[in-house]
């Protein structure tokens, strides 16, 4: 295995854990946290590529910075929705939010 593969294995593992969390968890807070986990797995992969491919310059790092910023914004909006929903329904369980079902 080349050095970058270790990082990619870690990233894949984190991503899968995050994906499982998104799919399996009922609690919206935990789903959001799992989403963060997936984003960070991608960040690790990007940072690793950036480090091991010098000719690509700093592009990978820039991407990581963008994703961190976007993730922060997303968490803000996501948590705001969770709070708003909690005020309305006294619940943070995702399967209870089904008003739009046809």
């Amino acid at each position, binding site marked *: 295995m080349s050095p970058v593969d270790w990082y990619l294995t870690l990233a894949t593992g984190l991503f899968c854990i995050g*994906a499982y969390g*998104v*799919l*399996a968890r009922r609690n919206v807070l935990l*789903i959001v946290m799992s989403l963060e986990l997936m984003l960070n797995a991608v960040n690790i992969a990007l940072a690793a590529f950036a480090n091991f491919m010098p000719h690509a310059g700093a592009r990978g790092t820039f991407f990581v910075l963008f994703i961190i910023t976007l993730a922060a914004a997303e968490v803000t909006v996501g948590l705001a929705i969770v709070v708003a929903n909690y005020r309305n329904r006294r619940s943070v369980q*995702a*399967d209870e*939010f*089904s*008003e*739009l*079902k*046809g």
Partner: protein
Amino acid sequence: MHVMITLIPLVPLVGFLVTLLLGKNVLKRRPEVVSLTAVTISWVLSMIVVAHVFGHHTKAVDFNLFTWVSAGTFHVQWGYLVDSLAAIMLIVVSTIGMLVHYYSIGYMRGDGGYYRFFAYLNLFMFAMFTLILANNYLLVFLGWEGVGLCSYLLISFWFHKKTASQAGKKAFLVNRVGDWGFTLGLFLIFTTFGSLQFGQVFAKAPHVSSGIVTWIALLLFVGAVGKSAQFPLHVWLPDAMEGPTPVSALIHAATMVNAGVYMIARSYPLVSQSHTAMLVVMIVGTFTAIYAAAIALTQNDIKKVIAYSTISSLGFMFMALGAGAWVAAIFYLFAHGFFKGLLFLGSGSVIHSMSGEQDMRRMGGLRKKLPITFWAMMIGALANVGLFPFAGFWAKDEILGGDFAAHYYFVWVVGLATAFLTALFMFRLIFLTFWGENRAAPDVQRHIHESPRVMTWPLVILAVPAAVLGLVVGLPPDGGWLHTFLAPVFFNVEKEHFVWAGTGGGLLLLSLAVVLAGIYTAYVAYLRRPGLPARVAALVPWAYQASYHKFYMDEFYEGAVIRPVMGFATWLWTFVDVKVIDGAVNGLAWAWGALGRALRPLQTGRAQSYAFGVFGGLFVLVILIRYFWGA
């Protein structure tokens, strides 16, 4: 000259638009003023044009106004052609048209659709003028359809009457059959000659194979059979009598029904090249002549008798065309326009005075009460049966002479028999209507009066040409003024089929004797011994019934055409439309509904199950890409 010719059809068109748009609300009490003015202007212009043609009859006026249709290689001009044939038609159409307009003031007074009636009459004049003045087949077709439309509108003028609206529909539909043939003829002319212009078509006509010419001539004749009410498409004309009587006189006796004869005569360079087509024209004409005369014998409706007489006369004209007696046919058309128009207007006057009664069995003895109408109709009848020296005599005799000279002896005999029958039924009409005791209900009898002057004057005016036209234009019988006048139209091409008509005094005397015998038979049967017709009818009931029921032609069409078509239409409706088409559309809607209901459970409403789909899809996608694309 060009401006005047252009104005002849244009003025009635303007009159039509003005009367139709402003008739009800602006012109109010006197809506006829505009259309009368228009038709009178047209008459004056026509007479000026005709006078010009009289002076220069060897040189036709032929000019184009503008390009009417231009598509690819297909170009049609809007143009007029005035030669001696068109001039004869102009005299008939404009004169009778104008007189009928004036007559209608009296006849239609007080009718709810008064202004509409005059608007239609003007539209008819426009279409008829276009038909006879056109210099190409497509423009003829425009006029042809235009007069057909007006015929329909005017037959069903009293549209609240079921029989009238039915008769209008019948006329329209039967004419479609003829127009189908005419249209095919136009197509064939265009593909053969590359033009529809008379001049170009006729110039090339001698160089085309006789097979194609025969087809063209026969297809054009199919159109003529429809429009001129020849067997077997004659059934619409008797029913067309549902329309107001001035319409019957103008459209269904004097002008429109002659369009077929005119068109065949106009196509002389084409038709005369095909012996087969000429023969077909003659046979159909001859058969129609005697067939219609046999029906007229037993009809009781005064207008129906004259209608069948018209069909018979038109058959006579086609008989002449087919036998090659072209001038005689036009001569007969010329005379027939006046005397048949006169007879119809006269019958209208009778009906008017009898408070709408049309059944001759309830008329009688009107000679004293309607003297002007009586004398006018007497002259019309004498001209129609062809008694010396009235107009019909010379024309009919030229036709019979033409048949004889062309060695069509059988046709000649049938023609004589038709002349006998014509004399018989025409004087049956005269005797039943004007002699004997009046058989109407007492309250009708009290109201019998001569028609107003606006109606009797046209009768008097029309009686003049009906009486003397033959003497003026037809003498001597084999080379009168009319022959010289029409010579440029009918002598340009091969002379093979032209027959000098009017052979000898023996034939003249013979046909005269036949006519007198017919009149005498009518006199015996309907005046001297009134019981005789009933006894003859009882003697040969099948013959009487066949004639009375018009040889069951309507029943034949009912069974052979109308019923099957109606049955087919009902089947299309109840099975194809309701079951198949509606079934398919409804079934399709149901199928999509079912599919939706089947797929509904997939929409769980849980975001995570959708997310599962997203991840699953992504997973499958990655595998697929890896499998098919990557290494």
